[in-house]
């Protein structure tokens, strides 16, 4: 199985330990960041930290850093398709205008029935 070792990189426990410590730190950071009012950027920061954490898990715990290019391409295409789903659907929502000229989010106290007469 010398050939096997040639193609399969074995990640060492030291790396795993470093990664888990980073992940725990980032978890603390994301909780801390949530308590700071950053306005619309709270969600951005939260998602950015989550994405860093996810990337670390994918690259090291899941060995994506050491797998063939083909597999990496598949991972990337999965994420890419998720982005297509999210962004193309949101492209409808963020440009929607209801008949009174109200942009998304649509008016919240809608009640079925006839709209009021001017």
């Amino acid at each position, binding site marked *: 199985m010398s050939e096997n070792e040639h193609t399969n990189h074995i990640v060492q426990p030291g790396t795993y330990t470093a990664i888990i410590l980073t992940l725990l730190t980032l978890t603390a950071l994301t909780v801390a960041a949530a308590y700071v009012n950053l306005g619309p950027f709270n969600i951005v920061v939260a998602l950015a930290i989550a994405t860093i954490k996810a990337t670390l898990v994918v690259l090291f715990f899941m060995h994506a850093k050491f797998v063939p290019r*083909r597999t990496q391409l598949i991972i990337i*295409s*999965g994420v890419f*398709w998720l982005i*297509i*789903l999210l962004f*193309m*659907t949101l*492209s*409808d*929502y963020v*440009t*929607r*205008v209801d008949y009174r000229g109200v942009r998304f989010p649509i008016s*919240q106290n809608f009640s*079925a029935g006839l709209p009021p007469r001017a």
Partner: protein
Amino acid sequence: MSTTATAPVQTLPEHHYLNATYGIRSWLLTTDHKRIALLYLASVTFFFFIGGFFAMMIRLHLMTPNGLLLSADTYNRMFTMHGVTMIFFFLIPSIPAVLGNFLIPLMVGAKDLAFPRVNLLSWYIYIIGGCFTLYSMIAGGLDTGWTFYTPFSTVYSNSAVAPAVLGVFITGFSSILTGLNFLVTVHTMRAPGMTWFRLPIFVWSHYATSVVMILGTPVIAITLGLAAMERVFGLGFFNPAMGGDPILFQHLFWFYSHPAVYIMILPAMGVVSELIPTFARKQIFGYGFVAAASLAIAVIGFLVWAHHMFVTGQSTYAALAFSLLTFVVAIPSAIKVFNWTATLFGGSISFDTPMLYAFGFIGLFIVGGLTGLFLGCLGVDMHVHDTYFVVAHFHYIMVGGAVMGYLGGMHFWWPKITGRMYPEWIARIAALILFVGFNLTFFPQFVLGYLGMPRRYHVYPPEFQVYNVMSTAGASILAVGYLLPMIYLTWAAFYGKVAGPNPWPATGLEWRTPSPPPTENFEVTPVVTWEPYDFHHRPDLGLEGGAPQGPAVAPAHGDD
């Protein structure tokens, strides 16, 4: 068969996958991709005839403006169950799970698919899903339309929505596992010398199909899962009464269900891409473009879904973007049609039954594909959306395209699957009946649609009657056309003339092994040294073009 070049008297091989083992257990627990393909064949045929029965009831009912035999509720159940059965239980599994399952390992020179047990599992999942759906038909039927639009399906319908949705949800996983299996098989199981650009177009099409299956199907699964939970537990994403948005359901639904159309048509295109070079005895024109067009359809096909929603009140900007992309996705299909036509030039064309289906496919697919332009065009869609124009359009694609491809493939590979030949002349007549019946059924519906007859109407204004009568007449011809192959193919499987390993002859790897093939597909692992559809360097085919000095060992190259 008209041009059998090999020895005149053929016998079946002594051992093959059909007689390897006997007994019901040997079939229900088989991991042989060829037997699983036959399990699928039996089950999709069963569902096809159930769906066909519903279709006949619909057409009979619509003979008169006030409806001939069904109540409103029954009619609604008929068209819903027709759609659900045909789409989820016939069209989506038909070519991939039957022909693809049987042929992909043979075509790439593998002993089996990458995950044989997963393959069997996917059939069981399909059957379980099918049972739930059949149960819903007995337990009150389903009247939501195959689109399950909310809030009708989640709040207002009083039919058996939950089991039907669950059935479709479950069947989705069968589709995912099949796609996964194909992708991995094509990547890792190819025989020596079988480079990517020596793969038959059939394999390329199934690769593209599998991409759609694995990326799209999970989304419909979660969507229907949420809809089912909404109906049963009162979740509210799609319920306007709770502030949810029914249009979100449509986005999620069509994110899968539009690409699903490509799950149906791409494999059929793959079949036709095999038939035309074989019966024109000529390399396919523009191999690289035909292969790339499959992938382009799969990718761009994911970017057009909201063209089903131009008149739902989605934003004008989104409608513009989706319409533009819709016109772009038409191009790869056009490329394929042009290349098929070009392949005919300079060929040596025979008119065996599979080739008749291929011609039929091209003709009907042109109509189906081009009418898609009307629907993708925003200015026309606002008139013809949700009318019979749409009904006619997608039947031209799905029945005229996918089913013609499926039947063409069945006839082409039937000698490989069973080792026996079907009666040629009956088959040619059946193909003709299908073509005529199909056009008579669905062409009048284009006119009905432009006149403004909405779909899913159990009664209609009297001025529409004349076209409806024509359509019903065509449907009865079509029904005969479908029964015929069913009968003579079954007959041929047992009593047909023995076909021999390569009756046409064709160039693919699947024809280099006995018919029917042995369980392990090839006695020795084949080594591929020829380019796809090359009739000129293949003396083993026994044709004039086969250079006597033996196959030229062409180097594997990267592009066409």
